[in-house]
Each structure stands twice: as structure tokens, then as C-alpha cells.
């Protein structure tokens, strides 16, 4: 790499500052309304982020380098330290990629003015800092930066539904973040540190609590209330991640946000909170929570997909699928084992790409036809073949049909959860997924002769805007490439997450060589194996075994990726899905689903779930 070294050592802060600077450019456009071109300039200002990522991929990938950047040079305890490791790199790349595409997709609409770009880019900057942060309190602040941006963006169109959805999300996530703060407090009280890098130093017994083996020891001494603290942290973040007790804000918020914003929310935001949760659980060795996540994931995937099947609002349908797919991701991660994290992140990335694609395509279709109702929208692709391609590719990818990326990542997940009852749940969910996308694809059918289509004059024939067209094209290519290059890409991910390879950096816990020499190496997979201290950049015993296991598990999976019987397996849900879809769109099916989808829980009911969820997370370690 010919990139200067300072790019590597300063990469974390650059990745945060670049979108922030771009937001500044957009804000200038707000102050001086005549400078309309600044919206475009703001996007150009995002591009150096790509350079930073490209410059750091080499060292992080090849050598397993973990970069620590002490903000302002304060390396001592309260100082803020940013960490760039494999996981952070992947997530940051995802944010940058989707962030740029979403910004470009917003360009064609005049209602997205400079202020909109300011909030959008601040959200991106906030997400970057969630990814890179090395301590819990900075994580809180970053989450709130993201949240404030998102509240504004959801309500941007000022539709009543948008306002209400935003308010609902605000209340829920504020309560969630209060719990998060409570958890931070307990951690600080008992362990005396907030830095995720120093947890091992102050409480070396923690990572031994849970683990791949699943044995649970009662926490000793000061760490007694740590399970409660972790429960509080998980609940706080869980609200943003939207798995089942905490999912209720998502359908409204994602459905009524402006279309590009929906793409960002569904595509990236929920993944980022998932990443934060992975970090926390890994660092605190809360491996005992993994079975819980496995089950929550399975239930989430299954229940949410049926909810999705009932929707007639195209965007709500997609929103419920986001919940369902998060369920897949959680289940994969909860399965534990070396490949689990790879499967989870692989699907997180796949989902980010195809769901952004779907939201943007459906958004354009809604704008063109003037209705959100799946049953009324017809001939959505007329005059815009790219729209048809985009919708079909997205739908096939989410149903796990080769050769798109959903096929690879869903296959990985199946291989990870195989043998558990959750496997069956996910299989059923995938049938329903296929069904609901067959239902969604009905919008491509030709218009009915009786003229049920309700396109307002002059909108139906609107040409596909150039910016959106380009974004759709890029995403289609990315989704396809993710499938065709599934093997190499999967191995890349496995190396980055530390499941394979010598440099054991499975997360912050394995971040060897922290300032102050918190040497602990070898956190392979989802669990923080208590590693040998001091071994900088070298995998400890735990990491080595994990790597061996991963290599064994991964190689056959990737080599036979496009074997005929595998492809046949993947096509089965499509057949089942067609049957289910037929049932749902039949007139009794419609009546039932109409009644179900009209049911929206009230805010107070929703908040009650909270307490239930918290208790659930707190009790699990006790009954284990």
C-alpha cells in the first residue's frame, strides 16, 4: 500500500470527521440558500471516506492490525479512545457505501433541502462513531447523535403518520437509552471503568462467565450486578435493533420516513445497534445470553414475517421484513461458534444492500403511481425496466434465491443454526418471506382493464430520475456480486471478524495492544475466550482452536456454494411461497390480513413490553 501511514493511524477519527465535515458543507447551504449546489458538494465531501477505508483495508485485513486512536491524545482512563478493527472496518464500509448511495438518491427530490442533508450526514457521522467508539459513554452519545438526526428525518415530510411515528420512536428509544445509561452506571460503579478496552484488566474473571461451552459461573465479588447491567445495556440497544419485544416502533417509523431515509434506517441503522450489542456481549463475556438471542431471533424471524405477509402497504411490508431479517441475524449470532459471527455479519451486509435497494425501488414506484397499496399499484415498472430489475433482484435476494447475496448469507445462517429447533423456524420463515415478495411483485402486473389503478395525472409516466436510477443500478450490481463472489467475500468477512486467520481480533475483547498494554489475544467467534495476556496480535489458544474449527466449517460451505442440490434446496421456499401467496391474496385471505394489519399496539402497551424484556434479559443468567 502506498497510502501514507497517518491515514491508518488516524483512520477512525477521519471516518467520523469526514461525514461531519460534509454535514457542515450542507449546513452552509442552509445558511446561504442561494448556494444550491452545496448539496452536491456535500456528497463529494463524503468521498474521502472511501479513500480512508481503502487505505486501511490492507493492514486490517492482512495483518489484523487494530488501530487505537486516542482523541486529543488523552490515553489515560477517561480519555476517549477510538478503535479500528475488522468489525469496525466492515461496519464503517457499510455505512459509507449505503450513506453515499442514500445521499445520492435524495438528490432528485426538491423537498430534501440542505437542512435535510445536514441531518442525514450527521446521522452517518454518528453511526461511524458508534462503530469506532471504545467506551460505553461515547457509545451513548453517538447513539443519541444518531437518534436525534433520525427523529428529524422520519418526520421530514410532516405527514401526520410520520410525525407520530417519529414521536413514538423518540419515546421508546429515549426510554431505552435511559436503561442504557443505567447499565453504564452499574458498570462504572462496580468495575470503575467505562472503557471496553479495560474491562479485561479490571475484571479478568468476566469473560470466563459465559462462553462457547455455555458453562455459567456465578459472578464473583464486584461483578455481581454486571448481569443486570448487561441486561440494561442490551435492552437499551435492543430498542434500536428492533427484535421482538422491542420492535413496535419500527414498522411505522420505517414505513413513513422519506424513502431514502427508510433505506438508511432499515439498511444500516439497525445493523449498527446490532454491532454495538455484539461488542458489549463479547466484551463482558455475556455468552450466557447467546441462547436467548438464538430463540429471540427465531421467534422474531417467524412472527414478523407473517405480520409482513399481512400488510397491504408496500413500505410497511418491507419494514416488517427488516424486523424478520434482524431475527435471522440474531439467531445466527446466538447459535454461537466460530462461524456464527461471520454468518450474522454476512447476512447483515446482504440485508443492508438488498433492503436499501428494495426501499429505494419501492419508494420510486410509490412516487410514480401515487399509492402505497400493493393491491392498487399496478404496472409499476412501465417505462422503467431498471425498476423491474431492481425489484426482482431485491425480492430474489431476500428470499435467498441464487445467485444473489441473500442466498449465500442465508445458506451460512442455515449451516450455523442447523440442528436446533430454530432451524425449522427459519425455514418456515423463509417460505413466508418468498410468499410476501411474490405478493409485492404483483405491483409489476399489467394494469387491470377496469382501471383500478389510481395514478394521479402526470405522475404515472414520470421518468425514473437519473440519480435514483444510478443508485438502483449500483445496488443491483452489489447484490449480484455479493452472491456470485460469495465464497471469497465470506472468507474476507471471516478474516475480518477474526473467525479465521492468525490475528485474533474477534472484537474489542481481543483487541490486543491497547494503550496501557491490555494484552489479551484470541477472541474467536462470538465469545471472548480468556486469552493469554501480552501476546500482541497473535492468537491465543482459544483463538487458534476457534480458527481451526472455522476453517473446517467454512471450507466445505464455500466450495460447494453453487452445487445443484443446494440450489434446489434454496428454490423450495419459492414453491411453498407461491402457494402461501396465492392463499393470502385470495379474497378471504385479504379480509383476514386486512384485519390483522389494522391492529397497531398503542404506545402504552408497547412500553410495557419494555419492562418484560428487561426482566427477561436480567433473569436469564440466574436461571441458567
Amino acid at each position, binding site marked *: 500500500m502506498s497510502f501514507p501511514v497517518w491515514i491508518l493511524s488516524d483512520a477512525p477519527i477521519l471516518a467520523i470527521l469526514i461525514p461531519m465535515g460534509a454535514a457542515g458543507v450542507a449546513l452552509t447551504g442552509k445558511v446561504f440558500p442561494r448556494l444550491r449546489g452545496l448539496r452536491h458538494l456535500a456528497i463529494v465531501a463524503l468521498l474521502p471516506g472511501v479513500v480512508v477505508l481503502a487505505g486501511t483495508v490492507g493492514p486490517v485485513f492482512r495483518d489484523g492490525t487494530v488501530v487505537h486512536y486516542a482523541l486529543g491524545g488523552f490515553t489515560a482512563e*477517561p480519555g476517549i479512545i477510538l478503535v479500528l478493527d475488522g468489525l469496525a472496518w466492515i461496519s464503517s464500509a457499510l455505512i459509507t457505501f449505503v450513506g453515499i448511495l442514500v445521499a445520492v438518491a435524495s438528490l432528485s427530490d426538491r423537498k430534501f433541502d440542505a437542512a435535510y442533508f445536514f441531518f442525514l450526514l450527521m446521522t452517518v457521522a454518528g453511526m461511524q462513531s458508534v462503530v469506532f467508539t471504545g467506551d460505553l459513554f461515547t457509545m451513548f452519545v453517538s447513539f443519541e447523535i444518531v437518534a436525534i438526526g433520525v427523529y428529524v428525518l422520519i418526520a421530514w415530510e410532516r405527514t401526520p*403518520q410520520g410525525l407520530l411515528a417519529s414521536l413514538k420512536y423518540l419515546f421508546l428509544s429515549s426510554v431505552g437509552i435511559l436503561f442504557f445509561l443505567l447499565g453504564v*452506571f452499574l458498570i462504572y460503579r462496580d468495575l470503575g471503568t467505562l472503557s471496553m478496552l479495560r474491562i479485561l484488566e479490571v475484571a479478568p474473571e468476566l469473560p470466563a462467565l459465559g462462553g462457547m461451552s455455555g458453562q455459567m459461573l456465578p459472578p464473583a465479588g464486584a461483578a455481581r450486578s454486571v448481569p443486570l447491567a448487561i441486561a440494561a445495556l442490551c435492552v437499551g440497544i435492543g430498542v434500536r435493533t428492533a427484535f421482538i419485544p422491542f420492535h413496535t416502533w419500527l414498522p411505522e417509523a420505517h414505513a413513513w420516513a422519506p424513502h431514502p431515509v427508510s433505506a438508511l434506517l432499515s439498511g444500516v441503522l439497525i445493523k449498527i445497534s446490532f454491532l454495538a450489542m455484539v461488542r458489549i456481549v463479547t466484551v463482558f463475556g455475556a455468552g450466557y445470553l447467546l441462547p436467548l438471542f438464538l430463540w429471540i431471533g427465531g421467534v422474531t424471524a417467524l412472527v414478523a414475517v407473517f405480520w409482513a405477509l399481512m400488510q397491504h402497504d408496500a413500505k410497511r411490508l418491507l419494514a416488517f421484513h427488516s424486523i424478520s431479517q434482524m431475527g435471522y441475524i440474531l439467531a445466527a449470532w446466538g447459535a454461537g461458534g466460530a462461524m456464527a459471527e461471520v454468518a450474522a455479519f454476512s447476512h447483515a451486509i446482504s440485508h443492508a444492500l438488498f433492503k436499501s435497494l428494495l426501499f429505494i425501488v419501492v419508494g420510486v414506484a410509490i412516487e410514480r403511481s401515487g399509492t402505497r397499496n400493493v393491491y392498487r399499484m399496478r404496472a409499476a415498472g412501465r417505462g422503467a425496466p431498471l425498476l423491474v430489475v431492481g425489484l426482482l433482484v431485491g425480492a430474489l435476494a431476500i428470499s435467498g434465491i441464487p445467485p444473489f447475496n441473500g442466498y449465500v448469507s442465508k445458506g451460512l445462517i442455515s449451516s450455523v443454526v442447523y440442528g436446533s429447533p430454530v432451524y425449522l423456524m427459519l425455514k418456515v420463515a423463509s417460505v413466508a418471506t418468498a410468499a410476501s415478495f411474490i405478493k409485492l411483485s404483483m405491483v409489476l402486473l399489467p394494469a387491470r382493464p377496469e382501471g383500478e389503478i389510481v395514478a394521479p395525472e402526470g405522475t404515472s409516466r414520470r421518468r425514473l430520475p437519473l440519480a435514483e436510477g444510478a443508485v438502483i443500478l449500483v445496488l443491483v450490481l452489489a447484490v449480484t456480486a455479493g452472491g456470485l463472489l460469495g465464497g471469497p467475500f465470506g472468507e474476507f468477512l471471516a478474516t475480518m471478524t477474526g473467525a479465521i486467520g492468525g490475528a485474533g481480533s474477534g472484537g474489542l475483547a481481543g483487541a490486543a495492544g491497547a494503550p496501557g498494554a491490555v494484552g489479551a489475544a484470541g477472541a474467536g467467534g462470538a465469545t471472548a475466550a480468556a486469552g493469554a495476556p501480552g501476546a500482541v496480535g497473535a492468537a491465543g489458544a482459544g483463538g487458534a482452536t476457534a480458527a481451526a474449527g472455522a476453517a473446517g466449517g467454512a471450507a466445505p460451505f464455500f466450495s460447494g456454494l453453487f452445487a445443484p442440490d443446494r440450489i434446489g434446496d434454496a428454490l423450495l421456499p419459492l414453491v411453498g411461497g407461491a402457494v402461501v401467496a396465492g392463499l393470502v391474496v385470495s379474497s378471504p385471505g385479504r379480509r383476514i390480513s386486512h384485519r390483522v394489519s389494522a391492529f397497531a399496539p398503542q404506545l402504552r402497551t408497547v412500553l410495557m413490553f419494555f419492562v418484560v424484556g428487561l426482566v427477561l434479559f436480567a433473569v436469564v443468567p440466574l436461571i441458567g
Partner: protein
Amino acid sequence: VTWYLIAAIFLIGLWGIIAEPNLIRKVIALSIANSGITVMYVYFAALSGDEAPILPVSGTAVDPIPHALMLTAIVVGICVVALALVLVQQLYRRYGTLDMREIEDRVWHAEEHE
């Protein structure tokens, strides 16, 4: 006892968010719950010493970190409350009521007839 009082503040706030139908009261409750957390941190810090952490210190200074954290958290909380009030005001303009249940009813019903 102080710990219980702090817990009470937090829980009152939480209850307010859950049970109050009035949106303004909900926002106030959010603010109260926020204060509960803030007071908790500050009280914990206050137990750790008996003097303000301003150099030079003669006795034991209190732990300054929680204060710094809470300063940040308060600012963040203010932003969120301000934003919540904006949203509430917009909803009030449209529907002329602050009752969450009624607004929810009307919004989702409007969607039905769309």
C-alpha cells in the same frame, strides 16, 4: 434511603411516559426520568469524597467523571426534549388535541381510508 428516592424519581418518570395520555405530560415525564438517572450518577459521585475536584484539594475530592458524563447527558436530554416538543406541537396543530390515544386513533384510521 436516598437510593430509593432516586429510584422513585426514575420510576415515576417511567410510569408517566407509559401511562399519561397527555403528550406534554409524557414529555415532562421523560424529563423526570432523565433527571432520575442524572441524580443517581451525581449522588454516587458525591459519596466518593467531600470536596469539589478543583485543585488544590485538601481532603478527598469527589470523582469528577460522573459529573462530566452527566453534563453531556443533560445536554443530550435537553435536545431530545426540545425535539419531542416540536413534534408534539406539530401534532397539536393538526389535530387540536394532546391526547395520545385520540391522535393515534385518528392517524391510523386516516390511513385505513386512504
